[in-house]
């Protein structure tokens, strides 16, 4: 589906990237821990998060994340929006909670960028 479809489905406000809403997205990753995002999220995926600081945008940039969806009505600090505009990463804000956000996207065919993590590091 396109970012436009996502925005409509989530009743989301577009805070950056109004001109990039035709972009197609098929997969997503949801987390509030940026180290987890770095470890597991895949390029071209949506990033769903409750964090709103510029580090979210930096993390998305490093990973070539397609777009950021801020959930639970979180609104980013102005610096984060500014950075997103510079780097050209769309940012959407929805008042839906993470569970509801992902549920709606999944129902329409979107999937996780990975299904599960392997146990290759750290974990016994």
């Amino acid at each position, binding site marked *: 589906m396109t970012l436009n479809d996502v925005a409509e489905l989530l009743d989301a406000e577009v805070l950056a990237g109004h001109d990039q809403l035709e972009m197609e997205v098929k997969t997503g990753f949801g987390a509030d821990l940026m180290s987890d995002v770095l470890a597991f999220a895949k390029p071209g995926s949506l990033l769903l998060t409750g964090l709103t600081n510029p580090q979210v945008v930096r993390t998305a940039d*490093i990973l070539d994340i397609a777009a950021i969806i801020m959930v639970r009505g979180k609104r980013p600090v102005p610096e984060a929006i500014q950075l997103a505009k510079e780097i050209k990463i769309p940012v959407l804000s929805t008042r839906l909670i993470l569970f509801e956000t992902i549920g709606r996207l999944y129902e329409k065919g979107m999937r996780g960028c990975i299904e599960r993590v392997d146990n290759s590091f750290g974990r016994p």
Partner: protein
Amino acid sequence: MITVLDVHEKPIFESSYTVQGGNFDEAGKVASQIKVILKKLGLQTDVVRKAALVAYESEINIVSYARKGTINISITPQRVKIETIDEGHGIPDIELAMQEGYSTADAKIREMGFGAGMGLCNIKKFSDQFQITSEIGIGTHLKMIILIENGA
């Protein structure tokens, strides 16, 4: 073991960046710049991604735990080398610090989405070669190598 790869190779690109400890607003800027450079050089996307990622976690650590630091990058047709050298209190127990989940991060760091004790694990996981040394009261030195398959 890392130095073996360094001999007889002329870098096609070299640069050095300064990172200020405690400057959370700018954290990640250097990693972003490095990513842009690697992309421009036309390196494979997974090499770019790994290098940007390890630079980013290292930069976050300098901002979080050190007074100041330097990030050096050097690229040869065979590999990307990223080195970070910081001035700070150093890491008393490296083995402990390398454990997933170990962290001394404060609230400010956790607010940014870090401080879950995964940074060094991520750096190790995404580097082909990784070396860490630290001296109490002096600082910490990381060396990361990402190999470029079949040359650039």
